[in-house]
């Protein structure tokens, strides 16, 4: 957990990509779940933030560099 947080602070690719992946997956689940309408409403913004974040952070340096 500490490694993950320090990776985020030091702008390392691994933890940021993980965060973006979680956001995309969360957005897709929110988009397709059949239970709560407001989750569906906010799904697109979550997926969009995750996708844009993924594109940006894939240019960050790898861990340990």
């Amino acid at each position, binding site marked *: 957990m500490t490694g993950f947080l320090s990776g985020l602070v030091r702008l390392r690719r691994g933890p940021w*990509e993980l965060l*973006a*992946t979680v956001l*995309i*997956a969360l*957005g*897709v689940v929110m*988009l*397709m*779940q*059949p239970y709560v*309408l407001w989750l*569906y*409403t*906010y*799904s*697109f913004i979550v*997926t*969009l933030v*995750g*996708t844009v974040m*993924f*594109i940006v952070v894939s240019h960050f340096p790898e861990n340990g560099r």
Partner: protein
Amino acid sequence: MSDTFADRAARATPKPAARRIRGLSDRAIAWIFVAPTIFLLLAINIFPLIWTINLSFTNFKANRANRAVEYIGLRNYERILTDSDIWLTMQATAHFLFWTIFFQVLIGFTLAWLINRKFKGNDLWTTIIVLPMMLSPAVVGNFWTFLYQPQIGLFNYVVAFFTGADPSSFQMIGDVALAPWSIVIVDTWMWTPFVMLICLAGLRSIPDYIYEAAEIDRASKMRQFFTITIPMVLPFLMLAVLFRGIENFKMFDLVVQLTGGGPGSTTELTSINLKREAFEKWRTGYASAYAIILFVTVFGLASIYVKALNKVKER
């Protein structure tokens, strides 16, 4: 020494043209070759994407192109993301996506594993199994509507044979509960061979000496399956899931031919709904926003899959 074609072409090139070409750097010549492709890519992919993003903020209607176009900000997105009918089509798509991928991976991997065991005539069986994916989706949709006919359809008779039910007592594409499963069955029938071929490539890429080493270490068949076969086929499986996931998210032709989105809107997938908004209701701006939402979702999913694939390959 014989005169080659290149020598003859070089001699035939007019002197001023040859001088001009000789004056260009390697980088410039590379650009000349690549430029047409880049131009086509920009014209066919990038420009329509940017244009669609632009239209998604307007109330443009393609059937009233002369009407003044008004910028309405995020209102199209707001309408789509609060529309319970579109939410239902998303759920129908999720059902279709989940179950088709589940069955295709399960059956495809099992078939690949069976075909990979050397037996007489396995090439013939491979050819027979891959036949459905060579057919046109429109043709498949059409003939499955006949197979699903309650009175004359073969499918109902096969189910009746195994269950003892009356063949005309159920309708696969006319029943609200069964229709979503009818499209899952047809897509699974058609695309399982594709997953099987990818899995087969994965299974055939595992060197025999790994299994031989496992045999020497007295690893059981079950252990070999879970510690050698599955991990080494996993990148191929993930590739199959990626391909099928993206393809099925965009699924249109097969389902339109089979059910037309009905009964009601139980099998109306997002792409069918999108086509209705764009070309039946002519709400072009609204449909553009809808398309952008689907695009971002598929793009996001593809990013996750590619990352996962690279991770598995690194192992």
